[in-house]
């Protein structure tokens, strides 16, 4: 989105609404069968799972930090301007004392800017890590939230910043539809939504489609564990003009291979062909949508 000058290679987000529909499995196998160098970014930073499958050595580890305020008690006059500005109760004024609550702070820097005596400085706090690896044709990126930290989007932004502009990228998104999903989808060019033909799967797919449409992104569907469609999933996709690019059967072998941390496309060749076909169809859709491969 919003590209000036040279056109960047496409960024495809793989999202779902409902958790456990197979986003990571689809991202991985699509990357493995993409047929050209590709980047695979694990943006599910709360629970990053991609490298359990790639098992590649990670290098270029970087810390992701957020700036939290610190108050110099000597300079602070207790005027309360910072507390008045703060929308999140991250900094509170109690008479002469000013207290910071880092777990509530969003790092907006407003308190620092408003303080009339320059009593507030900022210090970086660790909120996560990002790292890079290489697995054959796949350049792999991972974000990992520190346990106990609640702010997720800055870690996802840090992953996105590591993406190279000239290689297509697949972004494995977190489940749901909230701010961490939006942080992944923002500045993507295309979204693949993975679902299954269950009541939960269809209900959450509709939420995911609404999110994608709010962001004005084109999208297509992958149906996982496709058996008898008793919920009208395909009918919904047709009505909403959502192309279904792949239906994977409800095959216990896929669950078993995935449970061991292996790639379905490699362990089960018939599925390898299906993922290659998915890649081909997706590229066709991307070209139609005006994306750069």
């Amino acid at each position, binding site marked *: 989105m919003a590209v000036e000058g040279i056109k960047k290679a496409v960024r495809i987000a793989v999202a779902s609404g*409902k958790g456990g529909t197979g986003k990571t499995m689809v991202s991985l196998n699509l990357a493995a069968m993409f047929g050209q160098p590709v980047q695979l970014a694990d943006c599910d930073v709360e*629970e990053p799972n991609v490298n359990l499958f790639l098992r590649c050595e990670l290098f270029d580890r970087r810390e992701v930090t957020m700036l939290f305020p610190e108050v110099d008690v000597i300079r602070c006059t207790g005027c309360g301007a910072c507390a008045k500005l703060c929308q999140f109760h991250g900094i509170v004024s109690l008479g002469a004392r000013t207290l910071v609550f880092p777990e509530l702070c969003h790092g907006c820097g407003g308190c620092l800017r408003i303080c009339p005596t320059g009593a507030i400085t900022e210090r970086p706090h660790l909120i996560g890590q990002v790292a890079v690896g290489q697995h054959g044709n796949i350049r792999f990126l991972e974000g990992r939230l520190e346990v106990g930290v609640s702010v997720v989007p800055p870690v996802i932004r840090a992953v996105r910043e590591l993406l190279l502009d000239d290689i297509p990228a697949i972004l494995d998104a977190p489940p749901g539809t909230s701010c961490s999903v939006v942080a992944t989808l923002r500045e993507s060019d295309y979204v693949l939504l993975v679902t299954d033909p269950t*009541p939960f799967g269809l209900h959450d797919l509709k939420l995911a489609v609404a999110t994608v449409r709010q962001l004005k992104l084109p999208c297509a569907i992958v149906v996982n564990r496709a058996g008898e469609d008793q919920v009208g999933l395909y009918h919904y996709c047709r009505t909403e003009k959502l192309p279904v690019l792949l239906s994977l059967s409800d095959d216990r072998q896929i669950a078993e291979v*995935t449970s061991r941390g292996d790639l379905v496309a490699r362990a089960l060749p018939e599925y390898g062909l299906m993922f290659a076909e998915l890649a081909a169809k997706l590229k066709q859709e991307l070209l139609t949508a005006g994306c750069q491969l």
Partner: protein
Amino acid sequence: MIKKHIRELVILSGKGGTGKTSITASFAVLADKAVLADCDVDASDLHLLLKPEVEQRHVFSSGHEANIDQIECTGCGLCLDVCRFDAVRTNGTKYWIDPVACEGCGVCVRFCAAEAIDFPERHCGEWMISDTRCGPMVHAHLGIAAENSGKLVSTVREQALALAVKKQIPLIISDGPPGIGCPVIASLSGVSLALVVTEPSVSGLHDLQRVLALARHFSVPTAVCVNKWNINSQQADRIEAAARSAGAGTTSRIRYDRSVTEAQLQQKAVVEMDTAVADDIRQVWRQVSQML
């Protein structure tokens, strides 16, 4: 009933799709008396099984969002400089706010020299109090692409607690969100017991360990239940060993069975059908209710 006598059980998972909601609905049926809370506010599914009749509906507003008045704006660009969330967009002359990126910090509003930025309340979703065949239920849904899921979860929990006090119900059962971030922390802190439902896969184990670390961080007692154990029984063994070494309790296992989807289709909890997997869940419930 006073607050401190009310027990609160939250069902979590780390990894999504391990069966939290199916198990929560079954517990709701099996529990003698409980208030139900759906804390998975951005992809809530419990209502699909419990078919709540909504009695009260409330707008959830949280925080504010910035909005540049195009007539008052002088185009000085200061808002762009002060925003740390990449929410101010410009084409060089005109400035506007991307509502999806705006965190509602109000810094641009405060520093705009022309006072050209409005800061209205942000509607983030709604929460409801409902009646179900298993007792009262508090649930919510977050607006599409909205912020503040953690605050909405806290609202759901506060309302569930108030309902438990009012109706003299000693137990709250919450269906939690996946992950370990903001809404999970809001669901977890201060509960009596977190039951972590996982699946026997490399991802299940990895994600479980992060949830257990989070629960330790907040000093919440935990028990672990392996769902769909027969997909990979060796991995199920490894998961239970990891749970024990992390100081968590373990329950008996639940088998993988297609009748779980069948129950969903019939809008029933698994234990409302006569199947082997229903017996597995009954067994887990007996153990969990002992731990509470």
